[in-house]
Every structure is written in structure tokens, then in C-alpha cells.
């Protein structure tokens, strides 16, 4: 050990303790690091390098035989577990006899008949012990109905240890990762790289959203899809859409998400853009919870991929590219306003328009309110006229004092001072939820807290069929 240590030191050229010299022998130069020190630059330095002796030993022609290996036997994919039947809180209205969502209308219109019902439909009531144990053994949700043949085959082997490979094989046998396990229903929308369908899982009978990503790309699987999968894979939070399963076929990669009846936009349309302020608070809190957990997922692709300008912070509109989680918080402020007032805060159609709208309402920024803004060349056209900020009460008359305070903290020009999700959840505006709300376990719903429930929205129409024209594309695509 000591010898090895000595040799390492030799290689590093560091035999002399406290040597002030900056010259390293050949050993260290292989590990040479940029001079600016580790703290700023090391993450992108990429210096650790074993110089390859590239002459002889690699010329075995490895690049000439390319086995087109696509193992189809053992690679079937399953990852997360289907819904465990808990009531979901996300933007679903409380049971209300007056509300007829498009979903229920549709179901009663007979689409149900098209489902291929699993033969063991009544299984839930008479589930036996071995099924229960088997579910537990495979860490499956309790309400998943396992095929009888599967139970018969696996129940006798209960006491044997289970390897990862066996578990995966078992899950594949149940039907995870298989395209046959899901019935495609309506098409919900189409984006640049994916098509989203409403579907139904034959394993659980739950509705799911099937996001079918086409794979005919020159550069392989889209970067966004890979990030989406790898980030959502382990993210289980009550306010983040759950990824249940991934199906890979030759032509496509399908992500199976939990199905949400409507998004916020549809919800607001359905209640005629007049939400109760209690529900605004509830929705805003859930939005913050999700963001506090997800920590700004799309970072580098933000500016090109985001659909609308309306929720972009001014520093991004002015060309800033090193994004952080504060960029999301500006959008949260905009959405907060939109929920309360029923109309978008800054509905700009171009970048210039968007910035003008922002400055007109919140005042033209100065170096004090937005450090460095006056030296930004992009800002030059907006120097005059100099707008004064409007008082929050004039912008959003429905806000109470706490709401106005939170609103102005979210829409801070200085991104360093802009409130981020976790502290925002402890803002006095949310004190009615109690002290526990900000620290709920990730999988728990806000509605599990005593006294928290949705109110009836004043603008709610008796029928949810009439939808206004699509104002903006859903973020699902």
C-alpha cells in the first residue's frame, strides 16, 4: 500500500511536500487541469485522459463487423407500477353532480364497448392469498389483477429467492412493456416528435395516456425523449404525471402515462375562466409542490422548445442562456395571475411585444431591479419610454395582501431574488393549509390534509362540451 502510494505520488510529481512549483512532470500532465481552478471550470474540463496507444492493439477491425443485435428475449421493459387506485388530486374537480366532464360523456356514449375486457374482470373481489403475496413479492400495486395462469405458475415458487432477471421476466409475463397490454382509444394530439393517445390498460383497466414517440430520426431517439424517460422514471410525486410503463417496438417508443382528465387550460375553459380564489390557491400550491420536486426539468432546450412566449422570464427574452430553476417561477407567477383573473398576464405575440407588455405593467427595469440590464445590448430598444410599475392591486384586484406579496416575489426582475418553489410553499398565502402542507411526503395528496377540498367555481358551466378555440398548445407535446 505504501509503495503504491509512493508510485502514485511519483506519477503526480508530488514527492516534495508543500512544493510551490507549478510544473508537473510527465505523470501529472496527463491529468492536467485548466488553470482557472476547479470550482468554476471543472465540470466541463474533461481532462482526465489515458492517452491511448492507438497504433496496434485496437486495429482488430472492430468497426467492420456490426452485429445488429437487438435482443428481443430479455429486454422487455417495465419500470413503474400502474396506478394504485388512489384518488388523484391533479386538476380534477371534486365530485359535483353538476359537472359533466367530456370524459364521462364519452364513456357513456359507448366507447366502453370497444374495450377488450380482461376475462378475469371480477377477480378483484375474490383475490386469493397467493395473488396478494405474489403482488407483494414483485412489488406490484395491490389492485393489479394478475392472470390466473401466472399465479398458478409462480405461486409454488414463492419461497425461492427472486433475482432481478427473474423479476423482470415475471413482469413481462404479466404484460408490462407489451404493446398488447394497452388499447388505443382516441388521439389526443400530435406534436413534432410524438403523438398522444388516450388509452386503456388491460392490466388495470385504468385510463392511460400513450405518448408514441416516432423513432425514424437521423440522430436516433430524440434527446428530449431520452431525458423525459430517464428523469420521470424515478420521479414519483403526487403532483407530477406518473410514468407507468415504457413499450419499445421497432418503429416507436411508447411512454405510458397516467391519464389526466383535463389540463389547467381546459379546466379554466370549463369554468368560464372564473375560478374560485380558494381553488386558485390550491392549484398554485400543487404547481409549486411539483416544481419543488422536479427542479426545472427542461434546462438547455428551454428557449427553442417552449411553445409560448407568455410565461418566459424577461432575462430569457433578453437572451440569457444559463438557466436555473428561477425561470420556472416567473411562469408560475404568470399562471397565478391567469387563474385569478381569467386572462393571460402578458399575451405577447413576439419577443418585443412580450417585453413591452412586461415593462408596461411591472415598470422598466433598472440596474437596481435587474442587475446588469442596462449594459445588455438586447435591452437598448426598451430604454424609453420609461414605464412606472403599476400597483399589484390595480393589476389583479382579486388578490388579497398575501397573494399580492407572493405574486410580486414570483415576478421579481432579479432572478437571484425571485422566490423559488420550496420557500414559496411556506409563504403566508398558504398558511390556511397548515404547517404540514409544505412537507408532505411526495406521494401524498394535498387533499389528504384535513379541511382541504375544492370549492365550486363560480363560472362552472353545467356542460363541459363547449370548448373555446385552442389558445395554446398543451405542454404535453
Amino acid at each position, binding site marked *: *500500500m*505504501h509503495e*503504491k502510494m509512493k508510485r502514485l505520488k511519483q506519477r503526480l510529481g*508530488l514527492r516534495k511536500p508543500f512544493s510551490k512549483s507549478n510544473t508537473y512532470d510527465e505523470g501529472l500532465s496527463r491529468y492536467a487541469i485548466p488553470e482557472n481552478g*476547479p*470550482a468554476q471550470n471543472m465540470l466541463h474540463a474533461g481532462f482526465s485522459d489515458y492517452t491511448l*496507444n492507438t497504433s496496434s492493439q485496437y486495429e482488430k477491425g472492430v468497426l467492420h463487423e456490426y452485429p445488429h443485435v437487438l435482443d428481443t428475449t430479455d429486454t422487455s421493459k417495465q419500470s413503474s407500477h400502474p396506478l394504485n387506485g388512489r384518488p388523484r388530486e391533479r386538476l380534477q374537480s371534486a365530485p359535483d353532480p353538476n359537472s359533466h366532464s367530456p370524459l364521462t360523456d364519452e364513456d357513456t356514449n359507448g366507447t366502453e364497448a370497444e374495450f377488450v375486457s380482461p376475462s378475469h374482470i371480477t377477480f378483484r373481489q375474490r383475490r386469493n392469498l397467493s395473488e396478494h403475496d405474489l403482488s407483494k413479492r414483485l412489488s406490484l400495486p395491490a389492485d393489479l389483477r394478475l392472470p390466473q395462469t401466472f399465479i398458478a405458475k409462480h405461486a409454488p415458487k414463492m419461497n425461492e429467492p427472486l433475482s432481478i432477471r427473474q423479476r423482470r421476466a415475471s413482469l413481462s409475463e404479466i404484460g408490462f412493456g407489451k404493446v398488447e397490454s394497452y388499447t388505443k382509444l382516441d388521439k389526443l394530439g400530435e406534436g413534432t416528435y410524438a403523438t398522444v393517445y388516450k388509452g386503456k390498460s388491460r392490466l388495470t383497466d385504468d385510463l392511460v395516456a400513450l405518448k408514441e414517440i416516432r423513432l425514424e430520426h437521423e440522430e436516433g*431517439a430524440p434527446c428530449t425523449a431520452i431525458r423525459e424517460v430517464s428523469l420521470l*422514471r424515478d420521479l414519483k410525486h403526487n403532483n407530477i404525471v406518473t410514468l407507468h410503463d415504457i413499450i419499445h417496438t421497432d418503429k416507436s417508443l411508447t411512454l405510458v402515462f397516467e391519464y389526466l382528465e383535463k389540463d389547467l387550460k381546459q379546466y379554466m375553459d370549463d369554468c368560464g375562466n372564473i375560478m374560485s380564489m380558494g381553488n386558485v390557491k390550491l392549484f398554485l400550491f400543487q404547481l409549486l409542490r411539483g416544481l419543488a420536486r422536479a427542479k426545472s426539468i427542461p434546462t438547455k432546450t428551454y428557449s427553442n422548445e417552449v411553445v409560448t412566449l407568455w410565461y418566459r422570464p424577461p432575462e430569457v427574452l433578453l437572451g440569457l442562456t444559463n438557466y436555473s430553476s428561477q425561470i420556472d417561477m416567473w411562469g408560475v407567477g404568470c399562471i397565478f395571475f391567469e387563474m385569478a383573473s381569467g386572462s393571460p398576464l402578458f399575451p405577447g405575440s413576439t419577443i418585443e411585444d412580450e417585453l413591452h407588455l412586461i415593462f408596461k405593467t411591472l415598470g422598466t427595469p433598472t440596474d437596481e431591479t435587474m442587475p446588469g440590464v442596462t449594459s445588455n445590448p438586447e435591452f437598448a430598444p426598451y430604454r424609453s419610454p420609461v414605464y412606472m410599475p403599476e400597483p399589484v392591486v390595480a393589476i389583479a384586484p382579486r388578490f388579497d395582501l398575501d397573494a399580492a406579496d407572493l405574486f410580486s416575489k414570483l415576478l421579481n426582475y432579479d432572478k437571484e431574488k425571485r422566490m423559488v418553489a420550496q420557500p414559496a410553499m411556506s409563504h403566508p398565502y398558504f398558511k390556511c393549509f397548515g404547517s404540514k402542507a409544505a412537507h408532505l411526503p411526495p406521494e401524498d395528496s394535498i387533499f389528504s390534509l384535513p379541511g382541504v377540498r375544492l370549492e365550486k367555481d363560480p363560472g362552472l358551466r353545467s356542460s363541459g362540451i363547449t370548448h373555446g378555440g385552442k389558445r395554446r398548445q398543451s405542454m404535453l407535446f
Partner: protein
Amino acid sequence: MSFWDMLTSHTKVAGGSLPLEQITLPVAASSATTSSHSKCTWSSEERQLFKTASFITTCARKLEVGSLVKSNACWLFYKFFSIVQLEHYDEYVVAMTCLFLASKIEETPVKIRDVINVAHRTLHPREPPLQIDQTYSSLVDTLINFELLICRMLNFKLTYDYPHKYLLHYLKSLTEWMPAQHETEPYQRVAWSILNDCFSTKICIRNRPDQLALAACYLALESCDIKVYMQEHAEKPWWKVFIEDIRLSDISQLVAQILEMYENETAVTSFTVP
């Protein structure tokens, strides 16, 4: 009192003996100490994996993708070959795909063409560049197929808790604590290099990321003969401050793995140079 003395001071080693010998080594490592310098303790498979990981490193440097993408690529590579057998797949195709995939995971996608050209150049430095022909397009297809194969084999678990951020935190805290005289010492860079080098072997998938980062930091301080300031008077050793549940034996076991890697690396490279 040397740094190692200080860290093992609870055993109160007498002046003459070397406290390093007190540290228990894994069997393979301790047998290496007694054997000759250039003996390699790796199996031929481990050697092959190491060479291919070095190939990833070289390509990553040429593609200017940065340490995180490189480390992610090596991690994917070792993860993949911990599931499948080396002889079933062409390790260089897997390596290229891992690099390609890692660049996407870190949101700095590299063009598939660049990956192929750089890999080809690295493996066949004397051959002319690849033409856009049948060979090239079959390579593209292979990479695209392998990309999804790797995703599926790893169950789409494509990222993990990288040790780099831990090391950054440890180094930053230590630098602020240490007296200014150490500012010119290269221990930070050495630690960073050691950690990056760990991704050339299975060390990267076998150990807890925070512990690995700490071991790199520990080894770097020791190589530079730097003592943590005021450690003699501290209530607990500095590494306990960073990771509450780590034991000295954990660190020494990791340090032994890292030292063994460097020994083997020397042996492998000196062996293969014609």
C-alpha cells in the same frame, strides 16, 4: 505526524511502524503489494473493459463533451457489461453508443456523424476518413439500434447520483477551511482527476457516489501531503463531517481500489507499448 497517522490516530501507532500497513486491504490488492511492480491483477476481461473505457475517454476529449458526459458514458458502459457478457457484444460499438447516448442524457447532443468519425479515427488513425457509404450507414443504424438496446437493458435507468457534485462540495468546503498557504497546492485538481479516472474501471458502478468522491479527496490530500487544518484538535475526523456513516475502513478500502487501478493501469500500458 503524517496525514495517515492522524486519520488512524485512534489506533495509536508507535513511531516506527507505518500506519498504512494497518489498513486492511482486499485480498487482490494485498497480494499485488508483494508481487512485482508491473504485474497486472486484472482479468483479460477487465483489461479489455479498461481499454474500451479509455477509448471512451479519448473520444470524449476529442469531441469536447466534458467530464460529466464522459463519466456518464463510462457508467453506462460498465452498467451494460455488468448485465451482459463481454463476448456477446462488440465493446467498441457499445462504447460509441454509450458516448452518443450520454451526450443526449446531459442535453448536449453530439451529432451521430461526429461520434462515428471520431471513433473511427481513434481506432484506425492511419486509415482515411470514412466515406458516406454502405459501411457508414450501417454504422449509423447499428448505433441507433444499440442506443435503444442499452436503454432497455438498463431499464431506462440512464442517470445516477454522480460523485462529481459531492467532490465539488467537499473540495469547496475544505478550501474554505484550509489556510491560504495551501491554495497553490494542486490537491483539488488531483482529486478531480482521480475521480474521473475511477470511471475507467468498475469502481464507478460498485461504490456509493458520495464515498467515492470522499476517497478521491482523501487520496488527493494524502498524495499532496496536506493535513486538514486543525484536525488534531477536532472532535471528529473531517471526513465524518461530510459523510456521517462512513468508517475509515470504507475509505481505505476505496483508496486501495483506486491505487490498485493505477498500478494496473501502469502495468497494462507498459505491457502494451511495443
